[in-house]
């Protein structure tokens, strides 16, 4: 983990991730906020690569950058009028105080704790190990997750379906 390239990549990606996240806060138009969010997700995918998490990096690209951002844009264009507004409400100052407090506590805990650092290199490749674990040790949660996804898909279809026609009374 001592190569200069990895260090430079970490700093560039970290600045990209946090800077884009701040852009989400600052953007006045909510479509711009989603574009900043996509940049933040891309930076995170790069950070996963520097952590030798290849499968998770690709999953991040496909699911967050691809699917969830498109879903957000769909929801924005389906709720037109006045909803392009991305400004803060009356909870602005309490939210700022709480976020600063939580962030300070988490950073203090991260720096102050003596972590049991392992003396090993990054993973060679993770996809096959994750696949083995999913079908062996974590088979039951895997099945439950697929049921959860099915229920979520059916639930959202039922929610946004147009009102059913009045059938013969």
């Amino acid at each position: 983990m001592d190569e200069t390239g990895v260090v430079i990549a970490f700093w560039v990606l970290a600045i990209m991730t946090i800077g884009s996240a701040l852009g989400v806060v600052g953007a006045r138009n909510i479509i711009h906020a989603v574009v900043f969010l996509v940049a933040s997700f891309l930076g995170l995918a790069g950070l996963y690569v520097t952590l030798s998490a290849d499968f998770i990096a690709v999953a991040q690209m496909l699911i967050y950058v691809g699917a969830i951002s498109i879903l957000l844009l769909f929801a924005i264009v389906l709720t037109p009028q006045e909803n392009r507004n991305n400004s803060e409400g009356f909870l602005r100052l309490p939210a700022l105080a709480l976020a600063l407090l939580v962030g300070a506590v988490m950073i203090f805990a991260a720096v102050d704790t003596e972590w049991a650092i392992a003396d090993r290199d990054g993973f060679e490749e993770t996809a096959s190990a994750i696949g083995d674990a999913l079908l062996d040790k974590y088979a039951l949660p895997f099945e439950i997750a697929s049921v959860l996804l099915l229920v979520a898909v059916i639930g959202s279809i039922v929610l946004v379906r147009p009102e059913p026609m009045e059938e013969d009374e």
Partner: protein
Amino acid sequence: MSVDLEHYLIVSGLLFSIGLYVTLAKQSFIGVLIGIEMMFNAVNLSFISFARFVESGDPISGHVFVVFTITVSAAEAATALALAVLLYRVKGTVEVERMDLLKW
């Protein structure tokens, strides 16, 4: 100079607190969802960095847990955005301050 666990945890903590602020402060329901997604991502980053750096008998478990959080967050996003469309249809707005049916 090298990059350690603390660096990743600080990035994760910053991203989490920014997401928390966005979730609490934004007026638009979709802005709130954006903040929730940012918090999900911050947690995923800390899982992956713990799996990479911390002593463990089974480090791949961190990755498996992230696969599950991504699944749950995808399900959450689909349902919540359907709710946003539905709320717009019923109330004509997605501003959270005007969702005050329980207030009298």
